[in-house]
Protein backbone atom coordinates (compact mmCIF):
# COMPACT_ATOMS: atom_id res chain seq x y z
CA UNK A 1 0.00 0.00 0.00
CA UNK A 2 1.58 3.27 -1.11
CA UNK A 3 1.30 6.83 0.14
CA UNK A 4 -1.43 7.78 -2.34
CA UNK A 5 -3.63 4.85 -1.33
CA UNK A 6 -3.14 5.62 2.35
CA UNK A 7 -3.94 9.28 1.78
CA UNK A 8 -7.11 8.49 -0.17
CA UNK A 9 -8.37 6.13 2.52
CA UNK A 10 -7.75 8.64 5.30
CA UNK A 11 -9.33 11.48 3.34
CA UNK A 12 -12.45 9.64 2.25
CA UNK A 13 -13.13 7.01 4.89
CA UNK A 14 -11.77 8.54 8.09
CA UNK A 15 -11.93 12.31 7.67
CA UNK A 16 -14.88 12.36 5.25
CA UNK A 17 -13.10 15.17 3.42
CA UNK A 18 -11.56 14.17 0.05
CA UNK A 19 -9.98 17.61 -0.28
CA UNK A 20 -8.17 17.52 3.06
CA UNK A 21 -4.50 18.13 2.29
CA UNK A 22 -2.08 15.55 3.73
CA UNK A 23 1.57 15.76 2.76
CA UNK A 24 3.67 12.62 2.86
CA UNK A 25 5.71 13.89 5.80
CA UNK A 26 2.94 15.71 7.63
CA UNK A 27 2.40 14.58 11.20
CA UNK A 28 -0.86 12.72 11.66
CA UNK A 29 -0.73 11.70 15.31
CA UNK A 30 0.61 14.54 17.47
CA UNK A 31 -1.53 16.94 15.41
CA UNK A 32 -4.49 14.65 16.25
CA UNK A 33 -5.48 14.46 12.60
CA UNK A 34 -5.98 10.81 13.48
CA UNK A 35 -7.34 9.89 16.90
CA UNK A 36 -7.07 6.46 18.48
CA UNK A 37 -10.30 5.26 16.86
CA UNK A 38 -9.10 6.49 13.46
CA UNK A 39 -5.79 4.68 13.87
CA UNK A 40 -7.62 1.47 14.74
CA UNK A 41 -9.76 1.78 11.60
CA UNK A 42 -6.67 2.52 9.50
CA UNK A 43 -4.87 -0.53 10.86
CA UNK A 44 -7.85 -2.78 10.16
CA UNK A 45 -7.94 -1.42 6.59
CA UNK A 46 -4.21 -2.02 6.07
CA UNK A 47 -4.44 -5.54 7.48
CA UNK A 48 -7.33 -6.41 5.19
CA UNK A 49 -5.98 -4.74 2.07
CA UNK A 50 -2.38 -5.90 2.41
CA UNK A 51 -3.07 -9.27 4.08
CA UNK A 52 -0.64 -8.48 6.90
CA UNK A 53 -0.87 -8.58 10.68
CA UNK A 54 0.14 -5.47 12.59
CA UNK A 55 1.04 -6.30 16.21
CA UNK A 56 -0.38 -3.71 18.63
CA UNK A 57 3.10 -3.02 20.02
CA UNK A 58 4.17 -1.82 16.55
CA UNK A 59 1.58 0.95 16.55
CA UNK A 60 3.94 3.68 17.67
CA UNK A 61 4.84 7.22 16.74
CA UNK A 62 7.87 5.90 14.88
CA UNK A 63 5.81 3.70 12.57
CA UNK A 64 2.58 5.65 12.17
CA UNK A 65 3.31 9.38 12.45
CA UNK A 66 3.27 10.16 8.71
CA UNK A 67 2.07 8.65 5.44
CA UNK A 68 5.71 7.98 4.54
CA UNK A 69 6.51 6.21 7.82
CA UNK A 70 3.36 4.08 7.48
CA UNK A 71 4.33 3.13 3.93
CA UNK A 72 7.82 2.21 5.10
CA UNK A 73 6.45 0.16 7.99
CA UNK A 74 4.03 -1.75 5.77
CA UNK A 75 6.93 -2.53 3.44
CA UNK A 76 8.99 -3.83 6.34
CA UNK A 77 6.36 -6.31 7.55
CA UNK A 78 5.19 -7.35 4.09
CA UNK A 79 8.65 -8.62 3.17
Amino acid at each position, binding site marked *: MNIDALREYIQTEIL*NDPKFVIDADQDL*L*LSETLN*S*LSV*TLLIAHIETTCDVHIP*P*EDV*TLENFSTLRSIETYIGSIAN
Partner: protein
Amino acid sequence: MDLDWNNEERDLYDGVVTFCKESLQHDVGALDANSEFPKEAWQSCADFGVLGWRVPAELGGKDYPASLVAFLMEAFGYGCEDNGLAFALGTQLWGVQTALLQFGNEEQLEKYVPGMLRGELIGAHAMNEDSSGSDAFAIETTAVADGDDFLLNGEKTLVTFAPNADFAIVFAKTAPDAGQWGISTFLVDADTPGYTASEPDEMMGLRTAPYGRVLLEDCRVPSSSMLGKTGAGASIFGFIQSWERSLVLAPHVGAMQRLLEQSLAFARERKRGGAPIGKHQAIAHRIADMKLRLETARLLLYDTVRKQQDGAADMMGSALSKIYLSECLTQTALDAVAIHGGDGYLTEAGIERNLRDAIGATIYSGTTDVQRNIIARLLGL
Protein backbone atom coordinates in the same frame (compact mmCIF):
# COMPACT_ATOMS: atom_id res chain seq x y z
CA MET B 1 -30.62 -21.97 22.08
CA ASP B 2 -27.76 -24.04 20.68
CA LEU B 3 -24.46 -22.26 20.22
CA ASP B 4 -22.78 -25.43 19.01
CA TRP B 5 -21.09 -26.40 22.24
CA ASN B 6 -19.99 -30.03 22.09
CA ASN B 7 -20.50 -32.58 24.85
CA GLU B 8 -17.02 -32.06 26.29
CA GLU B 9 -17.58 -28.32 26.51
CA ARG B 10 -20.99 -28.81 28.09
CA ASP B 11 -19.43 -31.15 30.63
CA LEU B 12 -16.90 -28.45 31.46
CA TYR B 13 -19.77 -25.97 31.90
CA ASP B 14 -21.57 -28.34 34.25
CA GLY B 15 -18.33 -28.94 36.13
CA VAL B 16 -17.89 -25.22 36.76
CA VAL B 17 -21.46 -24.88 38.02
CA THR B 18 -20.94 -27.84 40.35
CA PHE B 19 -17.62 -26.41 41.56
CA CYS B 20 -19.26 -23.06 42.34
CA LYS B 21 -22.16 -24.59 44.22
CA GLU B 22 -20.11 -27.14 46.17
CA SER B 23 -16.73 -25.48 46.72
CA LEU B 24 -17.51 -21.77 46.97
CA GLN B 25 -19.37 -21.71 50.23
CA HIS B 26 -18.33 -18.27 51.48
CA ASP B 27 -20.95 -15.98 52.97
CA VAL B 28 -21.27 -13.47 50.14
CA GLY B 29 -23.67 -11.26 52.08
CA ALA B 30 -21.30 -10.89 55.01
CA LEU B 31 -18.26 -10.27 52.81
CA ASP B 32 -20.25 -7.75 50.77
CA ALA B 33 -21.28 -5.91 53.92
CA ASN B 34 -17.63 -5.68 55.00
CA SER B 35 -16.18 -5.06 51.53
CA GLU B 36 -14.00 -8.11 52.04
CA PHE B 37 -12.15 -10.09 49.37
CA PRO B 38 -12.82 -13.86 49.56
CA LYS B 39 -9.22 -15.08 49.70
CA GLU B 40 -10.09 -18.73 50.26
CA ALA B 41 -12.56 -18.73 47.39
CA TRP B 42 -9.91 -17.17 45.14
CA GLN B 43 -7.50 -19.95 46.08
CA SER B 44 -10.22 -22.54 45.39
CA CYS B 45 -10.69 -21.00 41.93
CA ALA B 46 -6.95 -21.21 41.31
CA ASP B 47 -6.86 -24.83 42.48
CA PHE B 48 -9.81 -25.60 40.19
CA GLY B 49 -7.81 -24.11 37.31
CA VAL B 50 -9.83 -20.99 36.46
CA LEU B 51 -6.74 -18.79 36.27
CA GLY B 52 -5.15 -21.14 33.74
CA TRP B 53 -8.00 -21.39 31.27
CA ARG B 54 -6.47 -18.83 28.91
CA VAL B 55 -2.82 -19.64 29.53
CA PRO B 56 -0.81 -21.69 26.98
CA ALA B 57 -0.02 -25.28 27.91
CA GLU B 58 3.74 -24.63 28.01
CA LEU B 59 3.11 -22.23 30.89
CA GLY B 60 0.90 -24.70 32.71
CA GLY B 61 -2.50 -23.59 31.47
CA LYS B 62 -5.34 -25.14 29.50
CA ASP B 63 -5.06 -22.89 26.44
CA TYR B 64 -8.83 -22.82 25.95
CA PRO B 65 -10.13 -20.61 23.13
CA ALA B 66 -11.66 -17.34 24.29
CA SER B 67 -15.18 -18.46 23.38
CA LEU B 68 -14.87 -21.49 25.66
CA VAL B 69 -13.49 -19.36 28.48
CA ALA B 70 -16.47 -17.04 28.02
CA PHE B 71 -18.78 -20.07 28.19
CA LEU B 72 -17.12 -21.24 31.40
CA MET B 73 -17.30 -17.74 32.89
CA GLU B 74 -20.99 -17.74 32.01
CA ALA B 75 -21.20 -20.96 34.05
CA PHE B 76 -19.34 -19.21 36.87
CA GLY B 77 -21.80 -16.30 36.81
CA TYR B 78 -24.65 -18.77 36.97
CA GLY B 79 -23.26 -21.00 39.71
CA CYS B 80 -21.64 -18.38 41.91
CA GLU B 81 -23.70 -15.67 43.59
CA ASP B 82 -20.59 -13.61 44.29
CA ASN B 83 -20.65 -11.25 41.29
CA GLY B 84 -17.62 -9.43 42.68
CA LEU B 85 -15.55 -12.61 42.58
CA ALA B 86 -16.64 -13.29 38.99
CA PHE B 87 -15.68 -9.73 38.06
CA ALA B 88 -12.34 -10.03 39.86
CA LEU B 89 -11.53 -13.23 37.97
CA GLY B 90 -12.51 -11.52 34.73
CA THR B 91 -10.11 -8.66 35.33
CA GLN B 92 -7.28 -11.17 35.85
CA LEU B 93 -8.15 -13.21 32.75
CA TRP B 94 -8.78 -10.32 30.38
CA GLY B 95 -7.12 -7.26 31.90
CA VAL B 96 -3.90 -8.70 33.29
CA GLN B 97 -3.26 -12.04 31.60
CA THR B 98 -4.10 -10.63 28.16
CA ALA B 99 -1.39 -8.03 28.59
CA LEU B 100 1.19 -10.49 29.88
CA LEU B 101 0.49 -13.24 27.36
CA GLN B 102 0.41 -10.90 24.37
CA PHE B 103 3.27 -8.55 25.20
CA GLY B 104 5.36 -10.23 27.90
CA ASN B 105 8.82 -11.56 27.09
CA GLU B 106 9.98 -14.98 28.28
CA GLU B 107 11.45 -13.63 31.50
CA GLN B 108 8.28 -11.68 32.35
CA LEU B 109 6.03 -14.64 31.63
CA GLU B 110 8.14 -16.94 33.81
CA LYS B 111 8.14 -14.40 36.63
CA TYR B 112 4.41 -13.80 36.84
CA VAL B 113 2.24 -16.36 35.05
CA PRO B 114 2.97 -19.57 37.01
CA GLY B 115 2.36 -17.74 40.29
CA MET B 116 -0.94 -16.37 38.98
CA LEU B 117 -2.05 -19.87 38.03
CA ARG B 118 -1.28 -21.14 41.53
CA GLY B 119 -3.21 -18.26 43.10
CA GLU B 120 -0.05 -16.91 44.70
CA LEU B 121 0.20 -13.76 42.60
CA ILE B 122 -2.53 -11.27 41.80
CA GLY B 123 -2.06 -8.52 39.25
CA ALA B 124 -3.65 -5.09 38.97
CA HIS B 125 -4.30 -3.10 35.80
CA ALA B 126 -3.34 0.46 36.67
CA MET B 127 -4.39 2.90 33.96
CA ASN B 128 -7.07 5.20 35.38
CA GLU B 129 -6.25 8.48 37.11
CA ASP B 130 -8.29 11.35 38.49
CA SER B 131 -7.21 13.37 35.45
CA SER B 132 -8.24 10.82 32.84
CA GLY B 133 -11.27 8.53 33.29
CA SER B 134 -13.19 8.37 30.03
CA ASP B 135 -10.37 10.39 28.42
CA ALA B 136 -8.15 7.39 29.09
CA PHE B 137 -4.91 8.72 27.65
CA ALA B 138 -4.94 11.99 29.59
CA ILE B 139 -2.86 10.38 32.32
CA GLU B 140 -0.25 12.36 34.23
CA THR B 141 1.89 9.57 35.70
CA THR B 142 5.41 9.84 34.36
CA ALA B 143 8.26 7.39 33.85
CA VAL B 144 11.58 9.20 33.55
CA ALA B 145 14.65 7.31 32.39
CA ASP B 146 17.45 7.30 34.96
CA GLY B 147 20.40 5.22 33.85
CA ASP B 148 19.14 1.69 33.26
CA ASP B 149 16.05 2.38 35.34
CA PHE B 150 12.85 4.39 35.17
CA LEU B 151 11.48 6.53 37.98
CA LEU B 152 7.69 6.39 38.17
CA ASN B 153 5.63 9.16 39.75
CA GLY B 154 1.87 9.54 39.84
CA GLU B 155 -1.32 8.17 41.32
CA LYS B 156 -3.62 5.55 39.83
CA THR B 157 -7.26 5.40 40.88
CA LEU B 158 -10.12 2.91 40.65
CA VAL B 159 -7.64 0.08 40.27
CA THR B 160 -9.13 -3.39 40.73
CA PHE B 161 -7.02 -5.30 43.25
CA ALA B 162 -4.92 -2.25 44.15
CA PRO B 163 -5.14 -3.02 47.89
CA ASN B 164 -3.86 -6.58 47.63
CA ALA B 165 -2.13 -6.96 44.25
CA ASP B 166 1.36 -8.42 44.13
CA PHE B 167 2.21 -6.51 40.98
CA ALA B 168 0.63 -3.91 38.74
CA ILE B 169 0.63 -3.16 35.04
CA VAL B 170 1.29 0.57 35.15
CA PHE B 171 0.77 2.94 32.23
CA ALA B 172 3.00 6.01 32.39
CA LYS B 173 4.25 8.75 30.10
CA THR B 174 7.82 8.28 28.93
CA ALA B 175 7.42 11.18 26.48
CA PRO B 176 4.98 13.65 28.05
CA ASP B 177 4.87 15.89 24.96
CA ALA B 178 3.74 13.06 22.69
CA GLY B 179 0.25 12.64 24.11
CA GLN B 180 -1.05 9.09 23.92
CA TRP B 181 1.90 8.14 21.74
CA GLY B 182 4.27 8.82 24.60
CA ILE B 183 2.75 6.27 26.96
CA SER B 184 4.67 3.12 27.91
CA THR B 185 3.73 0.14 30.03
CA PHE B 186 5.58 -1.26 33.05
CA LEU B 187 5.30 -4.30 35.31
CA VAL B 188 5.80 -3.03 38.83
CA ASP B 189 6.07 -5.28 41.88
CA ALA B 190 4.03 -4.09 44.83
CA ASP B 191 7.00 -4.41 47.18
CA THR B 192 9.07 -1.94 45.16
CA PRO B 193 10.10 1.06 47.29
CA GLY B 194 7.94 4.04 46.34
CA TYR B 195 4.89 1.87 45.53
CA THR B 196 2.05 2.38 48.01
CA ALA B 197 -1.40 0.80 47.77
CA SER B 198 -4.45 2.26 49.48
CA GLU B 199 -7.03 0.55 51.61
CA PRO B 200 -10.09 -0.65 49.65
CA ASP B 201 -12.43 2.10 48.47
CA GLU B 202 -16.04 1.84 49.61
CA MET B 203 -18.24 0.97 46.65
CA MET B 204 -21.89 0.65 45.74
CA GLY B 205 -21.49 -2.93 44.53
CA LEU B 206 -18.94 -5.58 43.56
CA ARG B 207 -17.65 -5.10 47.08
CA THR B 208 -15.82 -8.43 47.19
CA ALA B 209 -13.56 -7.19 44.39
CA PRO B 210 -11.21 -4.73 46.10
CA TYR B 211 -10.76 -1.38 44.41
CA GLY B 212 -8.29 1.26 45.41
CA ARG B 213 -5.42 3.61 44.57
CA VAL B 214 -1.77 3.05 43.77
CA LEU B 215 0.62 5.86 44.65
CA LEU B 216 3.98 5.93 42.87
CA GLU B 217 6.64 8.16 44.42
CA ASP B 218 10.08 7.92 42.82
CA CYS B 219 9.30 4.28 42.29
CA ARG B 220 12.42 2.90 40.62
CA VAL B 221 11.97 0.01 38.21
CA PRO B 222 14.51 -1.55 35.84
CA SER B 223 14.08 -0.94 32.11
CA SER B 224 13.57 -4.70 31.80
CA SER B 225 10.20 -4.21 33.51
CA MET B 226 8.81 -2.45 30.46
CA LEU B 227 6.00 -4.44 28.84
CA GLY B 228 6.14 -4.15 25.05
CA LYS B 229 7.91 -1.33 23.26
CA THR B 230 8.55 2.25 24.35
CA GLY B 231 5.60 4.41 23.32
CA ALA B 232 3.30 1.45 22.64
CA GLY B 233 1.29 1.92 25.83
CA ALA B 234 -1.79 3.33 24.12
CA SER B 235 -1.87 0.49 21.62
CA ILE B 236 -1.35 -2.06 24.38
CA PHE B 237 -4.15 -0.49 26.41
CA GLY B 238 -6.45 -0.49 23.37
CA PHE B 239 -5.70 -4.15 22.71
CA ILE B 240 -6.44 -5.10 26.31
CA GLN B 241 -9.64 -3.07 26.27
CA SER B 242 -10.90 -4.76 23.12
CA TRP B 243 -10.64 -8.13 24.87
CA GLU B 244 -11.90 -6.95 28.22
CA ARG B 245 -14.94 -5.18 26.79
CA SER B 246 -15.87 -8.22 24.76
CA LEU B 247 -15.41 -10.79 27.49
CA VAL B 248 -15.46 -9.44 31.03
CA LEU B 249 -19.26 -9.43 31.03
CA ALA B 250 -19.61 -13.13 30.16
CA PRO B 251 -20.60 -13.92 33.77
CA HIS B 252 -23.50 -11.48 33.31
CA VAL B 253 -25.23 -14.00 31.06
CA GLY B 254 -24.99 -16.62 33.79
CA ALA B 255 -26.16 -14.12 36.39
CA MET B 256 -29.19 -13.26 34.25
CA GLN B 257 -30.00 -16.98 33.97
CA ARG B 258 -29.69 -17.32 37.76
CA LEU B 259 -31.92 -14.31 38.44
CA LEU B 260 -34.47 -15.55 35.91
CA GLU B 261 -34.66 -18.95 37.59
CA GLN B 262 -34.88 -17.41 41.07
CA SER B 263 -37.62 -15.06 39.96
CA LEU B 264 -39.50 -17.81 38.15
CA ALA B 265 -39.43 -20.04 41.21
CA PHE B 266 -40.58 -17.18 43.43
CA ALA B 267 -43.39 -16.23 41.02
CA ARG B 268 -44.67 -19.82 41.03
CA GLU B 269 -44.44 -20.25 44.78
CA ARG B 270 -45.58 -16.92 46.22
CA LYS B 271 -49.35 -16.57 46.22
CA ARG B 272 -51.47 -13.45 46.46
CA GLY B 273 -55.23 -13.34 46.06
CA GLY B 274 -55.28 -17.14 45.96
CA ALA B 275 -53.05 -17.48 42.92
CA PRO B 276 -49.30 -17.54 42.27
CA ILE B 277 -48.07 -14.03 41.56
CA GLY B 278 -46.75 -15.32 38.23
CA LYS B 279 -50.34 -15.48 37.04
CA HIS B 280 -50.49 -11.71 37.30
CA GLN B 281 -49.57 -10.17 33.98
CA ALA B 282 -47.31 -7.53 35.51
CA ILE B 283 -45.09 -10.24 36.99
CA ALA B 284 -45.33 -12.60 34.00
CA HIS B 285 -44.31 -9.91 31.54
CA ARG B 286 -41.31 -8.95 33.65
CA ILE B 287 -40.18 -12.57 33.57
CA ALA B 288 -40.77 -12.81 29.82
CA ASP B 289 -38.59 -9.74 29.35
CA MET B 290 -35.89 -11.30 31.54
CA LYS B 291 -35.87 -14.32 29.23
CA LEU B 292 -35.73 -12.09 26.14
CA ARG B 293 -32.77 -10.13 27.50
CA LEU B 294 -30.95 -13.31 28.50
CA GLU B 295 -31.18 -14.94 25.09
CA THR B 296 -30.37 -11.82 23.04
CA ALA B 297 -27.46 -10.92 25.31
CA ARG B 298 -26.07 -14.44 24.94
CA LEU B 299 -26.24 -14.23 21.14
CA LEU B 300 -24.47 -10.87 21.04
CA LEU B 301 -21.79 -11.98 23.50
CA TYR B 302 -20.73 -15.09 21.61
CA ASP B 303 -20.99 -13.43 18.21
CA THR B 304 -18.57 -10.76 19.43
CA VAL B 305 -16.24 -13.20 21.18
CA ARG B 306 -15.96 -15.49 18.18
CA LYS B 307 -15.09 -12.58 15.89
CA GLN B 308 -12.54 -11.38 18.43
CA GLN B 309 -10.83 -14.77 18.70
CA ASP B 310 -10.80 -15.10 14.91
CA GLY B 311 -8.58 -12.03 14.83
CA ALA B 312 -11.11 -9.47 13.67
CA ALA B 313 -10.86 -6.36 15.85
CA ASP B 314 -14.61 -6.01 16.26
CA MET B 315 -14.88 -2.54 17.75
CA MET B 316 -18.54 -2.26 16.90
CA GLY B 317 -19.34 -5.66 18.38
CA SER B 318 -17.42 -5.11 21.60
CA ALA B 319 -19.07 -1.70 22.10
CA LEU B 320 -22.53 -3.11 21.39
CA SER B 321 -21.88 -6.08 23.65
CA LYS B 322 -20.54 -3.93 26.50
CA ILE B 323 -23.61 -1.68 26.44
CA TYR B 324 -26.16 -4.40 25.95
CA LEU B 325 -24.96 -6.89 28.53
CA SER B 326 -24.45 -4.27 31.22
CA GLU B 327 -27.85 -2.67 30.65
CA CYS B 328 -29.61 -6.03 30.34
CA LEU B 329 -28.25 -7.24 33.68
CA THR B 330 -29.13 -3.94 35.34
CA GLN B 331 -32.74 -4.15 34.13
CA THR B 332 -32.98 -7.85 34.95
CA ALA B 333 -31.69 -7.23 38.47
CA LEU B 334 -34.17 -4.36 38.85
CA ASP B 335 -36.98 -6.63 37.68
CA ALA B 336 -35.85 -9.36 40.10
CA VAL B 337 -36.14 -6.88 42.98
CA ALA B 338 -39.60 -5.82 41.78
CA ILE B 339 -40.79 -9.42 41.43
CA HIS B 340 -39.54 -10.32 44.92
CA GLY B 341 -41.08 -7.18 46.39
CA GLY B 342 -40.12 -6.64 50.01
CA ASP B 343 -38.00 -9.78 50.00
CA GLY B 344 -36.08 -8.36 47.10
CA TYR B 345 -35.46 -5.10 48.89
CA LEU B 346 -34.13 -6.72 52.07
CA THR B 347 -30.45 -7.60 52.02
CA GLU B 348 -30.98 -11.07 53.52
CA ALA B 349 -32.13 -12.70 50.27
CA GLY B 350 -29.23 -11.19 48.32
CA ILE B 351 -31.47 -10.08 45.45
CA GLU B 352 -30.76 -6.37 45.91
CA ARG B 353 -27.02 -7.06 45.88
CA ASN B 354 -27.30 -8.14 42.23
CA LEU B 355 -28.73 -4.74 41.36
CA ARG B 356 -25.92 -2.91 43.15
CA ASP B 357 -23.37 -5.18 41.47
CA ALA B 358 -24.90 -4.68 38.01
CA ILE B 359 -24.45 -0.91 37.96
CA GLY B 360 -20.66 -1.21 37.92
CA ALA B 361 -20.61 -2.75 34.47
CA THR B 362 -22.19 0.36 32.97
CA ILE B 363 -19.10 2.25 34.16
CA TYR B 364 -15.95 0.09 34.23
CA SER B 365 -13.97 -0.77 31.07
CA GLY B 366 -15.43 2.26 29.33
CA THR B 367 -18.80 3.69 30.29
CA THR B 368 -21.88 2.95 28.24
CA ASP B 369 -21.86 6.60 27.14
CA VAL B 370 -18.33 6.18 25.76
CA GLN B 371 -19.38 2.97 23.99
CA ARG B 372 -22.25 4.84 22.35
CA ASN B 373 -19.76 7.48 21.18
CA ILE B 374 -17.65 4.73 19.60
CA ILE B 375 -20.69 3.25 17.83
CA ALA B 376 -21.74 6.68 16.55
CA ARG B 377 -18.26 7.38 15.18
CA LEU B 378 -18.09 3.98 13.53
CA LEU B 379 -21.41 4.80 11.87
CA GLY B 380 -19.81 7.93 10.45
CA LEU B 381 -21.26 10.55 12.77
